[in-house]
């Protein structure tokens, strides 16, 4: 363990486009972040912010020919993922990096029993010769009880499980090979609140037990607040603000978009009559505005924001991409 560096994942200036005959979508526009072992990074943003695209790129699962990485690098445990041959990449996928998706209904094969699907994942990643092996079966039982499903249910089919239980199975499959990194794309969005609370708690406990690093993609700041160590807020393919959980949720300097996001959520403790949402809509990713992409919606937009890309202001772990806090801009 001693020779392992603390940094598990480092993404530098990653840029991704989706190219079709008709248009070019600028999905991710130069993002940089890193993740330390055992920590959870929350990627927050709204539809079209580029969260899922980033995740797919980490696994090299972008749609072929359409999704193109135009720049940047991804280093995972010291290895450059982008230059890895496909066979090597396949070994990493599932084995060292696993991903779980939002919809538990479509992530499971309806004609295989839950136990078989977990066993298959284990065998695929060299945890035994055959799915029927005692070793593999014992591991299946172990994984199932880990996610809070009685192992006696392993011979049941996905349709016999509720939504929350299915998501637990999906998580069990993702964790079966004890990956170093788990990418969870909106894992609880499709679940009811009380079930979401159960699953979030389970994920938090498991992460601690298995010492897995995690990237949690979500639009829900509440979920971030109770699960993540670090947070990166994405807007139009850029990380416009990032830092530790405390950096983001503490009062102080924030990107106007982050402020808008918080203003959009009704607070159950206060008696506001109207919310203070962000006006306007997400910019068209095929035709992003010059300068800061948030400038057309920004309540504090200045002249410079429309023409020049904002600089990064760093304050310890807290980084903000905004002219307000740059050298040229006025400070608050």
């Amino acid at each position, binding site marked *: 363990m001693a020779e392992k560096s603390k940094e598990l994942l480092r993404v530098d200036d990653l840029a991704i486009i989706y190219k079709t005959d008709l248009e070019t979508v600028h999905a991710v526009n130069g993002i940089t972040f890193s993740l330390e072992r055992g920590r959870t990074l929350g990627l927050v943003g709204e539809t079209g912010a580029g969260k899922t695209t980033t995740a797919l790129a980490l696994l090299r699962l972008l749609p072929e020919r359409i999704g193109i990485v135009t720049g940047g690098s991804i280093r995972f445990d010291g290895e450059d993922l982008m230059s890895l041959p496909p066979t090597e990449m396949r070994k990493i996928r599932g084995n060292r990096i696993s991903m779980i998706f939002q919809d538990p209904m479509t992530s499971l094969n309806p004609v295989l029993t839950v136990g078989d699907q977990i066993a298959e994942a284990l065998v695929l990643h060299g945890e035994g010769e055959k799915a029927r092996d005692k070793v593999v079966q014992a591991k299946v039982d172990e994984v199932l009880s880990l996610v809070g499903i009685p192992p006696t249910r392993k011979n049941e089919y996905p349709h016999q499980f509720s939504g929350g239980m299915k998501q637990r199975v999906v998580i069990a499959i993702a964790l079966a090979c004890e990956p170093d990194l788990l990418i969870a794309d909106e894992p609880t969005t499709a679940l009811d609140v009380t079930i979401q*609370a159960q699953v979030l708690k389970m994920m938090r406990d498991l992460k601690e037990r298995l010492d897995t690093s995690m990237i949690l993609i979500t639009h829900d700041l509440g979920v971030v607040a109770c699960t993540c160590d670090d947070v990166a807020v994405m807007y139009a393919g850029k990380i416009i603000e990032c830092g530790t959980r405390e950096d983001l949720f503490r009062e102080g300097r924030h990107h106007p978009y982050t402020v808008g996001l918080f203003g959009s959520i009704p607070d159950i403790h206060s008696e506001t009559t109207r919310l203070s949402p962000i006006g306007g809509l997400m910019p068209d990713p095929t035709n992003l505005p010059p300068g800061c992409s948030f400038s057309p919606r920004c309540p504090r937009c200045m002249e410079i924001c429309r023409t020049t890309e904002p600089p990064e202001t760093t304050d310890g772990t807290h980084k903000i991409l905004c002219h307000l806090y740059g050298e040229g801009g006025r400070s608050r």
Partner: protein
Amino acid sequence: MTGPRIRKNEVPLIETVDLKKYFKTSRGMLHAVDGVDLKIMRGRTLGVVGESGCGKSTLGRTILRLIPHTSGDVRYGGESIVGYGKSKMREMRRHMQIIFQDPYSSINPRMTVSQIISEFMIVNRTYPTRREIDDRTAELMDTVGLASRLTDAYPHELDGGRRQRIGIARALSLDPSFIVCDEPVSALDVSIQAQILNLLMDLQDERELTYMFITHNLSVVKHISDDIAVMYLGKCVELAPSKELFSNPLHPYTKALIAAIPEPRLDACLRDSDIIRGEVTSPIDPPAGCRFAARCDYCTPACTERDQEFRDMGDGHFVACTLMDG
């Protein structure tokens, strides 16, 4: 429901009396809505909150008679509407509208924005001339914040928020007094959600609309509602003015729901003790007694012996739980 704005003896705009809706399934009777009594006063918002399968959407649709009820009564302005014939019901529909959750499946993809908004006015012959309908359509688009250049746009060219605005304009087109909002913001991004919530509240102020706001999101329901009804497996377990429900929840399920909200604050984090165990039990031929008993930490034999009465705790706070007995 009582409240500061309500005069004594005022007739509620919408009232349900022991309303039931059962669905026949191959495994037995599904009790989607199982004896719900609610009153909504004119100009007020009743939030109906609960998890999937609790019957909140079915309740909304049964009140609007989009699906036939099994038993009980629905009253509009004191008059029972469940016996209305086809033509009388069509007349009635002008006063009661619905806004749907899914901004994608709730509008016809083959019609333009103006066609969708004007459709109800054409069907109901609200205006004698096409000209007036067109004018009114333009006015509605303006009201809900749709730019006039979108008149001829097709839904697929628009994002979820704007589609939802179309749905709202369509619901407003007949000038209804009562609107069932069935999870109108659940499918939207947070920043768009807030825009739509504000729009709905503005419209209510301008037009004295009465809402039944169905949602699973407690922070949203608290924000928009005057009163809140908490549903669990077809039954209303607690009903109280919004502020009261959050400051003094009485039913164990309500407490669990409130505790499960992930709050975007540093100090608010899910505590293990607040997380309720288990999942919603089957709504098919449910046994007598409290529907929540199987998941409840305070369950006593009395809970499963008989159905729980709705008890008046004063100040418009009602709860169905044995804990509140004597």
